[in-house]
């Protein structure tokens, strides 16, 4: 055995050639696929991890505008938390006095600047509303009512493409 081993090590060692052509092909395909699905848009920014958007057949792209994110636990404007939600009730948003809420104040401020800068005849741009699919309408209705009062009656409901 010893003799056999020493004979083997004495021969010049030639490293085995690895054929990486097929691996290169595979990587090229993966790379092209990923480059196509690469998205620089921060589409899901601000969404909670447990949030689920409804699926839809809609094909319209959303506009870059005010974004409200309504999950089962928080209401966010962009990335800022405006209110917390408990048992489908928005804390700090009194249905009888919507104008006293933080949401109304912030949206009215945005509406003032929006009217100043917008030249669109249709008025302010729609609000992009990302809502969890399990929320009841009573919760969403408070948001849409408040936004309409603040001067944003048009909405874009964000959905996942089917």
């Amino acid at each position: 055995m010893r003799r056999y081993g020493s004979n083997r090590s004495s021969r010049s060692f030639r490293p085995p050639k690895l054929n990486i052509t097929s691996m290169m092909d595979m990587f090229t395909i993966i790379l092209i696929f990923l480059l196509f699905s690469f998205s620089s848009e921060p589409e899901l920014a601000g969404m909670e991890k447990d949030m689920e958007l409804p699926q839809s057949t809609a094909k319209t792209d959303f506009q870059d505008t005010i974004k409200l994110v309504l999950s089962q636990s928080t209401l966010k404007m962009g990335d800022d938390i405006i209110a917390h939600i408990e048992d489908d009730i928005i804390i700090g948003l009194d249905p009888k006095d919507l104008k006293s809420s933080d949401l109304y104040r912030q949206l009215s401020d945005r509406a003032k600047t929006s009217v100043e800068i917008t030249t669109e005849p249709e008025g302010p741009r729609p609000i992009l509303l990302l809502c969890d699919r399990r929320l009841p309408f009573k919760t969403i209705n408070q948001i849409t009512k408040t936004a309409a009062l603040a001067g944003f009656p048009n909405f874009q409901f964000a959905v996942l493409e089917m």
Partner: protein
Amino acid sequence: MPGLKRKKNRDEPDVEVDMVPIMNMFLVLVPFLLMSASFLHIKAINTSVPVLGSASKEKHVDPSLKTTVVLELNKTAMALSLNADTIEPKEAAKWRRQFSKKDDDAFPLELLADHLGQIKNAYPASDTLIIVPNGDVLYETIIQTMDVARYKDSETKLFPNVVISGKIG
């Protein structure tokens, strides 16, 4: 032919391109792109809520061709009616329908789509549907209903202007 092959092998040395740096680059690029790739595509449904005092800017159309569909949603059924302000009350009553949930706890959306298609044929200038959901109706149900009401298929429009209104009272 075998002679030719032998000659070629003797004259031209094997040239091997070093693929290792390219492989390294791929190995860095693939995880980076995997992390930043977005496999969920977000789209949007345009809608609005009714606002007091918003004057109608639409063109004048023959009232006999146009009406507004009102769809009330609750947890167990959908009630469809036409706005009797624009058409005869008798005519409006003819189109009234109720769609109750099926055994599998889903709304019969195909029946709703068929009925909306018939209304669209009768009033081709109509493009507005008002959804009036109850407070306990889930957002997902509203979106499914909007999908059915807006387009019959990718080409045929039914009622693309969907207005969401909370129940009064």
